C-alpha cells in the first residue's frame, strides 16, 4: 500500500503542527507515508470564487504529483471533497480518475481503510466537535440534521474511543461556521457573525477543546476565539488522535 500525504496549502503555511501530527499518527499506525515535495494546493480557493478555469493548471499539478499512489491522505474533508467532486472539468485520463478515487480524508482513511477501532489516548476534556460542511454533507462523513435526528458520524465515533473524553451537546449540531473560503472576506459581516454564533454555542455548552476535521473552519473559529479571548483551545482532530494535549 503506497500512501502519500497531502498537506493543504494553508495548513502547510500556518499549521505545520497539524501536518506533523497527521504524519506521526499515520506512522504510528504502521503506514509508510510518502510526502511529495512538489505538492501545493488542490485548487479549491480559485474554483469556489468562480475561477475554476484558472484552477485547471493546479488540478493538473495535483494529479501529476499524486498519480503514483494507492492512497492520498489529507487532514481535510474540504480538499478531499474538491478533488473528488470538482476535478470533472479536466480530461478524465486514467491517472486523473485514479487520483480522484484515491484521495481520502484522514479520519475516513483511518476508519474505512486502516479499520482503526482503538485509540489508546487519554483526553480528559470536554470536546466540542465542529463538523465541516464539506466533510459532513459533501463526503457524508456524518449524518446531516436536515435528514435525520441521529447525530452519528466518523469523527464522533473515533472521538468517543478516547479515554476520559466528554463530548459537548450543542444547540445546533451542524450549522456552518461561516468560513466559506473567499466568503470570509467578501461577506465579512455574515461570515463573522456565523462564527461568533458557533463559538457562543460552544461556550454556552461548556466546550474546552474545539476540534474538527478541517483546519480552515477551525482557523476562522480560532480567529474569533482569540479576538474574544474565549476560554477555548482549538485543535485539529489529527492532533488529538496523535496524543497531543491542549
Amino acid at each position, binding site marked *: 500500500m503506497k500512501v502519500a500525504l497531502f*498537506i493543504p*496549502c494553508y495548513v*502547510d*503555511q500556518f*499549521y*505545520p503542527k*497539524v*501536518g*506533523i501530527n497527521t*504524519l506521526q499518527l499515520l506512522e504510528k499506525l504502521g503506514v509508510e507515508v*510518502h*510526502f*511529495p*515535495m*512538489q*505538492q*501545493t494546493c488542490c*485548487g479549491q*480557493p*480559485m474554483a*469556489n*470564487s*468562480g*475561477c*475554476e*478555469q*484558472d484552477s485547471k*493548471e*493546479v488540478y493538473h*499539478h495535483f494529479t501529476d504529483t499524486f498519480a503514483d499512489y494507492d492512497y492520498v491522505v489529507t487532514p481535510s474533508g474540504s480538499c478531499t471533497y474538491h478533488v473528488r467532486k470538482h476535478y470533472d472539468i479536466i480530461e478524465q485520463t486514467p491517472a486523473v480518475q485514479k487520483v480522484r478515487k484515491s484521495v481520502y480524508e484522514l479520519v475516513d482513511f483511518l476508519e474505512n481503510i486502516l479499520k482503526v477501532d482503538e485509540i489508546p489516548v487519554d483526553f480528559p476534556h470536554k470536546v466540542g466537535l465542529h463538523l465541516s*460542511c*464539506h466533510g459532513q*454533507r459533501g463526503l457524508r462523513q456524518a449524518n*446531516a*440534521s*436536515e*435528514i*435525520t435526528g441521529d447525530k452519528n458520524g466518523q469523527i464522533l465515533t473515533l472521538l468517543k474511543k478516547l479515554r476520559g473524553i466528554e463530548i459537548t451537546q450543542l444547540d*445546533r449540531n451542524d*450549522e*456552518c461556521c*461561516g*468560513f*466559506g*473560503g*473567499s*466568503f470570509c*472576506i467578501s*461577506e*465579512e*459581516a455574515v461570515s*463573522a*457573525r*456565523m*462564527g461568533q*454564533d458557533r463559538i457562543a454555542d460552544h461556550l454556552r455548552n461548556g466546550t474546552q477543546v474545539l476540534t474538527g476535521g478541517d483546519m480552515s473552519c477551525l*482557523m*476562522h473559529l480560532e*480567529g474569533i476565539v482569540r*479576538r474574544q479571548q474565549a476560554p477555548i483551545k482549538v485543535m485539529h482532530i489529527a492532533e488529538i488522535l496523535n496524543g497531543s494535549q491542549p
Partner: protein
Amino acid sequence: MNHPALAEKFNSDYNRTTWHDETLWFVRQKRDRAIYPIPEFQELRQLASQIKDHTLSNLDTYLLEFEKNAQQNGVHVHWAADGDEHNRIVLDIISNAASVKGKTGPVRMVKSKSMLTEECHLNPFLQKNGIEVVDTDLGERIVQFRNEPPSHIVMPAIHLKKEDVGETFHQHLGTPKGEKDPQALTEAARQHLRQKFVEADVALTGVNFAVAETGSFVVCTNEGNADLGVNLAKVHIACMGMEKLIPKIEHLSVFIRLLARSATGQPVTTYTSHFTKPAKGKEMHIVIVDNGRTQQLGRADFRNSLKCIRCGACMNTCPVYRRSGGHSYDFTVPGPIGAILSPNIDLHKYSTLPFASTLCGSCSDVCPVKIDIHVQLYKWRQVVAKENELPLSKKWGMKGLAKMLAMPKVYDLGGKLARGALRVLPHGITHAQSLNPWAKARELPDAPSQSFKEWYSKNQKGKS
C-alpha cells in the same frame, strides 16, 4: 445591488440579527420535528424529484393537456410570455368581466399570496389602472401597508416584530398606539379584511399545483383567505408559473405531504383547496406565465431549479439568509433558491447572489424536491466569472494565485515571504481593518517560522 453591503447593514443591528436568526431557526426545528418521525420522508423527496424531472422533460405535452382539460371544464386559459403580458391579461380579464362591466365606482380585487404576481409587479400596474388591490394573506397585507416587498416567500413579514406590525396597524387601521398583542392585531386585520372580501369584484389566487390530467389546480393556504375571496367574488383569476404542473392527481399526495412539513413543520396546510370549474354564474381564468422559465429550462446546469415548490425551507435553514434577511437579496424569491433563479433573469444585477453562500449544502439537503442548490450556486459562480461580472480584484487575484499554486518553488517562496512579513509587521498593520476585512472580528493565525514542508525537509529527508 450588492448582497454583502445590504447584509452588512442588516448585521449592524446585532440583537435584531439574533432575533431574526432564532425566529427562522425555530421554523427549521419545527420542520425537523415534523419529518423525523416519517420513515419514508427521503423516499418521498426522491419521488417528488423524479415526478418533477419527468414533468419538466415533457412540459410542452403536459401544458397542452392541462389547457385542453381546463377548457373542457369551462375555465378560460391565457398564456403570458412575460410579466408585462401577464399584467395586461389580468387587467383585460377584469375589464371585460360581465360582472365588472358598467360598474360604477371602484373595481375591487382581493388577492391571496402569489409570488408570481410579486415577480410580475402586478399590484402597482393594476393600481395605476384604477383597480383597488388588497392582499389578503396577513403577512402580505402587512408588507403591502408598508410598501415593502415580502422578505420570505412563505412568511412575507418575517422580518418584522410585533411592535413593527402594531405601529403599521396604528397608522393604517387605527389600532391604539403601542398595541402589540398578536391576537388584538390579528383581530383588527380580520375585521378590516372581512369588509374587503365582501366588497370584492375579483379574487386572484396563486397556484401551488396544477394537474394536467384533470385541468384542475390546488391552492394551499393557512388562513383560508383564498377560499373566502374566490367564493365571494364573481371572477376568479389564478396565476401560475408554467412549472407548477404535475401530471396526475395521484402525484399530488406526494407533494402535499412534503410541502407544509418542509415549509412550516405542519403536517398539511389548514386549507388545501381544489379548483376545477367555475360555479354557476361565475368566471374562472388561469394565466400561465413563462417570464424566463423557458430560458432556465434550456440551461442544462440550472433547469432543475424549476422543480421548486416554493416551500421556503432553504431560506429557513440557510445560515446566511437567517443573518442577512430576505431584503438583502433584492429579488422576489430570496435565499438560496433565489440566488440560483435570479441570475437567469439578470446576471449583472444579481451577480453577488451566487456568492452569498458558504456552499454548506444545507439547502440541498433540506429541499423537498432535491434541487442541488449548492451545486448550482457553484456553477453560477463559474458563469459570473466567465461573463466577466467578478470584481476585478478577485478576477486578477485568483489568476495570480492559480499561477503561483501551479509552480511549487514560487509557492514555497511566496509562502515564506508572506509568513516572514506577518511575523515582523506590527499587529496594527496586519490587523488594520481598512486593509484586512478578516481582522474586523478575527485574529489572524500566528505565522510559524517554518512551514510543514520546511520542517519535513529538515527532519524527514530521504523518506519520499
